[in-house]
């Protein structure tokens, strides 16, 4: 895991050094003389060779880092994931602010889409060919095809402006008001869940149909087990293995930033932070958030591996 993180951080560094943009120029102000540019570059540590900057970055995680001295100093205490000169804050504090927003959106939406998606898939499979099946799958096709930006805007238009029953933007902290937190998140959750549930519904349906044709299901039925037990304990349990694999990866990726949803609903999460950093060549923030996103994907993979053991005793 450490090796993967090192590789990700190294790759991020190198990619941004191959690109032509100069972070020091972005910080130098309107009329920037060559000597000012040199001073800014030296202050930010960008005049060092790339390998040295990378080592400084790694060292700061454990030992912290101070730019300048005295009243003009900027201190980034350990664990220092970098300092954003554009935002005048440490990357860790930026992540600390934005992560709860993204986590709130991602976890709520994930629970919603996993439950509704698999339930819809199971129902659809059990009622194959009926009007219910067709209705569920048609809705799923709409969900799979619709861009989240469009779904978000339509939801805002309907529930925010026409019906005026839900807030269209802003995030309220869970600690500040749990009720308002959930109230403000209803639309983002539903938008994300609508799109992902459609994919999960289709996958569950096809897996379920396959499982229902398997020998072990026929055997279970032949043993005289109740249908409900056959479906839940035997068929669905097997269906959940690929579903959980996908769910883990999706959730991990989503925690790295639900970019579009955050943007539409004016929530300042990791995705919005990352996009802003890319636009302003804020290398420290990009590196910090990318590494964090990589951690989420790795941890999610690890958790998925553990879940296999629960679902499938053969693993």
């Amino acid at each position, binding site marked *: 895991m450490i090796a993967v993180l090192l590789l990700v951080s190294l790759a991020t560094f190198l990619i941004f050094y191959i*690109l*032509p*943009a*100069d972070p020091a*120029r*972005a*910080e*130098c*102000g*309107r*009329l*920037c*003389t*060559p*000597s*000012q*540019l040199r*001073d*800014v570059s*030296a*202050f930010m540590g960008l005049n060092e060779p790339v390998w040295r900057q990378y080592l400084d970055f790694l060292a700061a995680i454990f030992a912290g880092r101070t*730019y*300048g*001295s*005295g*009243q*003009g*100093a*900027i*201190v980034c205490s350990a664990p220092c994931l970098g300092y954003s*000169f*554009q*935002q*005048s*804050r440490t990357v860790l504090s*930026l992540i600390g*602010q*934005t992560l709860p927003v993204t986590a709130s959106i991602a976890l709520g939406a994930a629970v919603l889409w996993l439950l509704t998606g698999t339930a819809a898939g199971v129902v659809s499979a059990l009622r194959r060919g009926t009007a219910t099946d067709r209705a569920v799958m048609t809705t799923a096709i709409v969900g799979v095809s619709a861009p989240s930006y469009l779904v978000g*805007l339509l939801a*805002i*238009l309907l529930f925010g*402006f026409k019906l*005026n029953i839900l807030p*269209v*933007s*802003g*995030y309220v902290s869970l600690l500040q008001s749990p009720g308002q937190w959930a109230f403000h998140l209803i639309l983002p959750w539903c938008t994300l869940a609508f799109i992902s549930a459609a994919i999960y519904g289709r996958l569950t349906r096809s897996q379920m149909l396959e499982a229902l044709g398997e020998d072990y299901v026929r055997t279970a039925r032949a043993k005289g087990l109740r249908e409900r037990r056959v479906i839940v304990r035997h068929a669905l349990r097997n269906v959940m293995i690929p579903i959980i694999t996908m769910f883990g990866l999706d959730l991990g990726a989503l925690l790295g930033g639900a970019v579009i949803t955050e*943007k*539409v*609903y*004016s*929530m*300042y999460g990791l995705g*919005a*932070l990352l996009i*802003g950093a890319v*636009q*302003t*060549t804020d290398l420290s923030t990009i590196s910090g958030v990318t590494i964090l996103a990589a951690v989420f994907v790795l941890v999610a993979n690890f958790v998925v591996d553990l879940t296999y053991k629960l679902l499938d005793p053969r693993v």
Partner: protein
Amino acid sequence: MRKHIVLSGSAAIALTAVLAACGGANNASGPGTPTVAPAAKGGTLTILDSETTLTLDPAQSWSLAITSSGLLWRRLTTWKIAPTGAPEVVPDLATSDGTPSDGGRVWTYHLKSGIYFSNGQPITSYDVKYGIERTYAPALSGGLNYQKPLIAGTAGYPGPFSGKQLSSIVTPNSKTIVFHLNKPYGNWPWVVSTTSMAPVPEGKAPAATFGKDPVTSGPYAVQSYTPGTSAVLVRNKYWNSATDPNRSGGPSKIIFQLNQDPTVEAQTLIADGPNAQDAFGADFVPPAQLAQVESNPSAKARLVTSPASPLEYLAVNVQSPKLKNLKVRGALEYAINRQAVVVASGGPVAADPATTLITPGIVGRQPYDLYPAGSSGDPAKAKSLLAQAGVHKLTLTLATQNDPISTSISQAVQQAYSAAGINVQIKALSSNAFSALVTGNSASGYDLALSSWQPDFPSAMDNIEPLFASAMVGNGNYNISRLADPKVDALINRAEGTISGAAAGKIWAQADKAIMADAAVVPLVYNKNSFLRGSNVENFYIGEFPAYPVYTAASLKH
């Protein structure tokens, strides 16, 4: 919102921090005669803004004098922007715009009485000096900072945190401050109106922390600020309106709602629900919503559109081997179809054709057209110029940013030049890559570049010098035509050293024509910016310059 590299005051701000763009036309209360009502006091004004951050350290601010930073900080001078009439520089903390001596190399200011910071401390000349010295600290780089190269003896100055002071800023007493410049500079009163010249309590503003909990001097103080979410400004109880006739200080509280999606923001203001009535948008209304507003009388009455202002232009890279011949560049001037560019920009509601450089509303502007070719261009004349130059096949690379409007304008340019037999290849880049290409030290990689510019303060200097002075080629600066014409440089130097605004304006007009005679730039259109307000907001207007609303005037009806 468009994010061109340049847009001086306005656009770049969007990139970095503050501005919350806005701006509307001369109609404070919808179409019709511009009016300014006496500002009612009280209420909570909300400003919806797509920016995620506000820069709360004046040393690093990109904000215009009359937008967000104008609410928080006073400077020696500020701008007086009325719904009609030319913008003026007027005294703010100082008693006058400045008294020049030594031919404009030395400027003296005296402070008013009864001026205080938000912590109750009196504002002195030492605080003004300290605030300016801070801008030289590497930890506080960024922002407009026009003063940095102008103040004498600043080479290698590391800022006041080193314990060193600038000897070129003299403070004989707590009420007097004298600036020694390294050349005569007639625009100094405008330079001292910029946010980076704001006073900061001497010795009490560490680089790392001041911007998190700033001491302010304007009508408002910062109650709280969460990047990406909101900034809450409340009244600065030590602000004395008797010393500050240029800020209304109307609302009791101002809330910046940050990180707004411009489409949702415009929809919110069009709907004018209970939460939006006391709000205005800091972002340009997107083209789709602009069309929607046209068919909605209520919203249309609340739309404010600026006069034609920021210049959209095609920089002609005069150092490109293909464009060294003046006749070839002249062909580019004649072949352009400005009508098509207006359409690509969003139609007449969004842009007017431009044939000159200096922004309308700024002293020195003279309308003229050195290459008369009608609104749709003269491809025949262009072909004949190319033939005279002996050029039979011309293929040019046009660098542009990859946002929808820039792409659309680039295609209009491509089609217009195609009619004159000039093949244009569009090189669409991200804003960072575009900026690196056109402002870098190498002249290769592009022949033409599509860009946009609005001055940071209303002086023709800021239309001309950053874009066409030879010192502004490369090193990240914006002379992207890469023009180095001694005649233009001489005019710039002469105009800068001229103290009288009217006399300087005449020289700037000559510089405008000299640059056009070089055919180093094809002016395309002057853009208009549109903004929306809620139904309970009044005194929301845009003057002749800049193309943004005057935040410091906006108030709420009661």
